[in-house]
């Protein structure tokens, strides 16, 4: 029996160095849905992305995460990736000496192996590269270099979307993919995401600006504040936030001053 939800997070709590960051978070995502998670700096958005992808910065202390009916917390980071979870990193990592081609080829073939598929032939792989490069309008010069090495901030973000196009995930997490992009780059990245999406691809867009949501229109908007989702609504909620800022949320959530202003640098 197919579960209704692709992703189901229940009462999730997670800590970093014994400090609780996620304080009982609930989220349900069906196949094909786009959810936006907004919230001020330091509210735990990236921590949520880390927990979902298995990065061991935060420790899960309570709650469950089910992905496609399976217990996500039992899986290694690479298994989660192979199951179809993709993270567009807020801060993409440089890997000098490893060519984009080799990196992508290894990733794709590992994921195919996980699904019981044969590795792609060299020519099929190169065709796929070409096709996806056009889709996200990324310069060939970039994909001929080492992974993210010497890329500008915008180029790195574009490269994340290119990788997403290559890997065709079932759930894409975009962690502030819009930050550091000028308006043209933003449009290219957002259109890229829209073109890549298949009807059943789910997307979680993490951002604290509304502008990306003009291009990637969400079905739901959630406000993450101090480790909890304090408000959920439709796209109009993003507009309200844009107008009124986060202050009114803060008042409603009624939490102490120092928690929400925790701004990283």
């Amino acid at each position, binding site marked *: 029996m197919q579960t209704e939800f692709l992703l189901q997070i229940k009462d999730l709590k997670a800590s970093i160095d014994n400090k609780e960051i996620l304080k009982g978070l609930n989220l349900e995502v069906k196949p094909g849905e786009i959810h936006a998670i907004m919230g001020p700096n330091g509210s735990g958005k990236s921590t949520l992305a880390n927990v979902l992808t298995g990065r061991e910065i935060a420790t899960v202390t309570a709650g469950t995460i089910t992905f496609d009916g399976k217990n996500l917390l039992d899986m290694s980071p690479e298994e989660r990736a192979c199951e179809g979870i993709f993270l567009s990193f807020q801060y993409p990592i440089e890997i000098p*000496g490893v060519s984009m081609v080799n990196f992508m080829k290894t990733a794709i073939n590992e994921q195919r192996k996980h699904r019981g598929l044969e590795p792609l032939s060299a020519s099929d792989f190169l065709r796929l590269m070409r096709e996806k490069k056009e889709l996200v309008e990324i310069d060939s010069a970039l994909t001929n270099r080492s992974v993210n090495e010497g890329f500008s901030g915008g180029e790195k973000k574009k490269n994340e979307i290119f990788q997403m196009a290559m*890997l065709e995930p079932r759930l894409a997490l975009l962690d502030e993919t819009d930050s550091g992009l000028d308006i043209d780059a933003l449009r290219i990245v957002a259109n890229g995401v829209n073109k890549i999406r298949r009807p059943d691809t789910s997307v979680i867009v993490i951002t604290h600006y509304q502008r990306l949501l003009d291009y990637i229109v969400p079905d739901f908007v959630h406000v993450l504040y101090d480790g909890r989702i304090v408000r959920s609504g439709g796209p109009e909620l993003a507009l309200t936030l844009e107008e009124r800022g986060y202050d009114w949320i803060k008042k409603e959530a009624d939490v102490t001053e120092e928690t929400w202003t925790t701004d990283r640098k």
Partner: protein
Amino acid sequence: MENDQDKLLGEVTSGEYKYGFVTDIDTEVIPKGLNEDVIRLISAKKEEPEWMLEFRLKAFRHWQTMKMPKWAHLNVPEIDYQEIIYYAAPKQKKGPDSLGDVDPELLKTFDKLGIPLEEQKRLTGVAVDAVMDSVSVKTTFRETLAEMGIIFCSFSEAVKEHPTLVQKYLASVVPYTDNFFATLNSAVFSDGSFCYIPKGVRCPMELSTYFRINASNTGQFERTLLIADEEAYVSYLEGCTAPMRDENQLHAAVVEIVAERGAEVKYSTVQNWYPGDKEGKGGIFNFVTKRGICKGDDSKISWTQVETGSAITWKYPSCILRGNNSVGEFYSVAVTNNYQQADTGTKMIHIGRNTKSTIVSKGISAGFGQNSYRGLVKVLGKAEGARNFSQCDSLLLGDKCGAHTFPYIEVDNPSAIVEHEATTSRIGEDQIFYCNQRGISTEDAIGLIVNGYAREVINKLPMEFAVEAQKLLQISLEGSVG
């Protein structure tokens, strides 16, 4: 290339040393210990002419006046030279000229090591001299090569069959007084390969020697001499492995290369002697002297080494650039994991005008490994227009290992240009996680990163060795993260 890499990555399942088995074969050994009688005995076993014995004795007498060098960044336990066996030979019928004469156990051993000695099995055009302990077991493709005037045989045979050539070139690059280990080797060397490429001949296949230590408590002291006459070309490969044993074993080899006018020699090594276990027990002590001379104008010698094995490596393949416009190259990847130690590098001695040298050294340290680059670039007064470029990179995995660089530069000619660049980097957990997030396992991620880092050197290896080397790099670093 890409495909091979995928295959390799998939193939690797455990970090164990794959070549640690022992061949069960009757071995003739002489009593342990070192004195003039032992040297006479070795010489007699090899039925050597008088001049060869004299050379050995001269070296031995000199060695007795020497002390083990201590300048390397290595922690070497005391070696008792009287506890070592200096000659061990697998017993087989004399003169294995046809394969039918080679003991099936030996054929099986080399098969298992991936070095089939049947010529028809070797599709890739590589001629092999297979050396087990102190003797050469079999040299393939000798006849084919002989048709072109190329001599490729064991050192012992060369002493008997080509005494003039051997006498002319032996110790002409590494004199018997050179250093403690080279002198010891000159006294007790057992077997190794001899190769002569005549004037104007391009050797049509890769020549290679595969060294295998099998017997316990023995040292291996091979000697290799490569001569490329005017305008000749040869690419030569060397591979080596040894069984896993708890005690350390000594390996002290000498390699000499002579390149006459316009000649080119490429010498590649994939060194995979047993490195010892995770606690640092056992493993080979590898003290090797390798040197080439670009004797004639426009000659070129290129060293490429991938050093993944041995408990201790002490090795500086060098070039004496005597001919005008001669070129020396050194490309090296050295890995130290667990408790391995390596002190390796090169010397480029510029004597002739417009001589050029390139040094690319890539150290990789993991576990408690200690990895040192030691290099000398020396430009003599007459070396007008000499040029050197050195690049020394270190890559660290974890925080308990060490990387060190000791570059020495001595320039006596104002027109010389000597450039040195060095970098140190670390494989970060964030890099590994980034790979994980794309579906790549940690072991494969390290393989990707390390092979990317070492690519510039790996690319210099002949194809067949490049694949082997990539696999080795990954295996030697397994278990070093997480």
